[in-house]
């Protein structure tokens, strides 16, 4: 059953969560994600599901911890400063192996920043974000439709790996209104949650369940390194199985743009404009920012391609692209400094990206293109 709706990305996340069977949402107001929290406040109680407005983002994420420990499909959403506040507990959840979905609708930073769009939380999201060794799968939607679909995927992956999953949106994707086909996606079965607390009477064996977040006295593992080894295996398995990206006009591309979220839509337009001028441009759009599609980029680098990263920050994802390229090709950046106006409302626009492409193309022509260099 699918229903077509004209909704913004923030609302599409709500619909995605609802059809994914999310049972509880805990949230605290912060711009630009307020439409998500308000959506759940409106839709969840009337559907007999749990909505609580928390007293802070610390409250939200720790309520998520509790509900996840109780075995519920649960989520929260926030933006920059609230995202920072949540990191301690997300680290605890990675240790306790609790599944949950956390949405970060990015705004500008550092600090209070502007409350409008930016893409500056990449490092914090893709490197764990809190203390200690862990990683979260990070999904980056670039349309309202993807907000709906990737939210469903996020719940599936969280349960599959017993790990938090992050949806990294931004203020433009969140407030962009598009037609969305709200349809349930079947990802297959997930492991049952026999480990969750619900009172001993709720367990077939009648034995107690303990959810804990450290490897101390009553640890699940005989020792600390056993825990780390298991987390390490989980990280490796996610890296091997969960890389997702979109390739756009990549067949013969020699100049490859890499972008996610709203700037991926800008980059796509720039690719079209370049193609109209017979420049062989293409786009790799990471859908999972972690695990990152290193291999797809590395392969093209080995074939001699050049790369242009488009991101609305001072340059964060560009470091992952350079890591993948391993010095085999040029990696340039169109950044937040290239916005069309220097205010919080400024954007990276396709003409700016096209100008950079033309510049790189001209240099390529001068130097001579060497495939397989």
């Amino acid at each position, binding site marked *: 059953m699918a229903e077509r709706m004209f909704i913004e990305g923030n609302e599409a996340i709500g619909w995605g969560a609802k059809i994914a069977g999310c*049972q*509880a949402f*805990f949230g605290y107001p912060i711009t630009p994600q307020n439409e998500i929290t308000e959506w759940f406040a409106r839709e969840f109680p009337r559907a007999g599901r*749990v909505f*609580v407005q*928390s*007293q*802070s983002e*610390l*409250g939200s994420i*720790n*309520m*998520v*911890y*509790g*509900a996840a*420990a*109780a*075995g*519920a499909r*649960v989520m929260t959403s926030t933006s920059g400063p609230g995202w920072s506040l949540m990191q*301690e*507990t997300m680290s*605890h959840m990675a240790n*306790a192996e609790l599944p949950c979905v956390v949405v970060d609708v990015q705004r500008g930073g550092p600090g209070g920043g502007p409350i409008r769009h930016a893409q500056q939380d990449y490092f914090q999201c893709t490197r764990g974000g809190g203390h200690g060794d862990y990683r979260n799968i990070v999904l980056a939607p670039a349309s309202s439709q993807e907000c709906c679909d990737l939210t469903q995927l996020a719940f599936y992956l969280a349960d599959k790996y017993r790990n938090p999953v992050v949806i990294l949106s931004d203020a433009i994707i969140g407030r962009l209104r598009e037609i969305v086909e709200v349809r349930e996606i079947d990802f297959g079965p997930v492991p049952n949650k026999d480990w969750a*607390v*619900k*009172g*001993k*009477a*709720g367990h077939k064996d*009648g034995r*107690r*369940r*303990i*959810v*804990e*977040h*450290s490897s101390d*006295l*009553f640890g699940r593992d005989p020792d600390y390194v056993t825990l780390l080894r298991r987390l390490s295996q989980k990280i490796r398995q996610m890296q091997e199985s969960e890389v997702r990206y979109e390739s756009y006009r990549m067949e013969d591309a020699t100049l490859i743009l890499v972008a996610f979220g709203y700037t991926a839509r800008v980059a796509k337009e720039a690719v079209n404009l370049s193609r109209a001028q017979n420049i062989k441009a293409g786009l790799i759009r990471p859908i999972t920012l972690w695990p990152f599609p290193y291999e797809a980029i590395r392969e093209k680098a080995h074939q001699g391609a050049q790369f242009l990263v488009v991101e609305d920050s001072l340059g964060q994802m560009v470091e992952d692209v350079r890591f993948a390229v391993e010095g085999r090709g040029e990696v340039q950046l169109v950044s937040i400094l290239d916005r069309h106006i220097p205010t919080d409302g400024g954007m990276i626009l396709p003409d700016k990206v096209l100008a950079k492409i033309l510049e790189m193309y001209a240099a390529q022509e001068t130097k001579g293109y060497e495939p397989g260099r």
Partner: protein
Amino acid sequence: MSQEGKAVIREMVAGRPKLLVPQTAAFVYCPGCHQPLVARAVAEALEELGMGDRAIGVFGIGCSSFLVGMLDIDAVNGPHGRPPDMATAIKHIYPDNLVFTVQGDGDLLSIGADPLLGALTRAEKITLIMLNNAVYGTTGGQMAPTSLLGQRTTTTPEGRDPASAGFPTHAAELIATFKGVVYSARGACNNPYNYQLTRNYIKTAFEKQMKGLGLSFVEVLSACPSNWRMSPLDSLKWIEEKMIPEFPLGEFKNTDRIE
């Protein structure tokens, strides 16, 4: 009375509650610590109410977190100060279960003041239990919000001075002022009478929750001989002579309706 009869009575009066996991307190807690007594009081209250199978305990960071292994019930251990948040969510997911927290004074009143205020404001139908030992126990006896004036701790080596470190927080009295609270009491475990009183406070707090009335709270004065640098026996006297005058025992709120 026969030997057998005496054994039965001994078991009834002083036997280990079934919900208390054997041998856990011995290797976790310092000699003279009152946390095992609080664990026992919780276990007895749960057994008397027949709620052991439907109870979910929530614990944070500090010596109180070790209760996660001591009680034979479903339990969750999480970040420092956050048990009221976690308990809130669990209660919303399972409204028919008995959901309670056990925290130290630092966990609840200092780092955990934000979740405490949140739960009080929303009138969550959960039970909070707080041990007040006037110091940070696990980390080695630093000043807590509940430290007494003049009390020497590792971070108030000259004694707690109100000019720089303020005054002790009175949790039971403070919490009683919230409209969403139906029960707030303070007990102690320094003698058998106070222990029985405290056990009954905890039981009443659980009953209030099961009636779905509002938030219930019990504070328990708790000895920490290691960090007080005292013998267990002197610690009992210190509770009687120093702590109880500052933190009087009793019920500060006991109502069956919130409005």
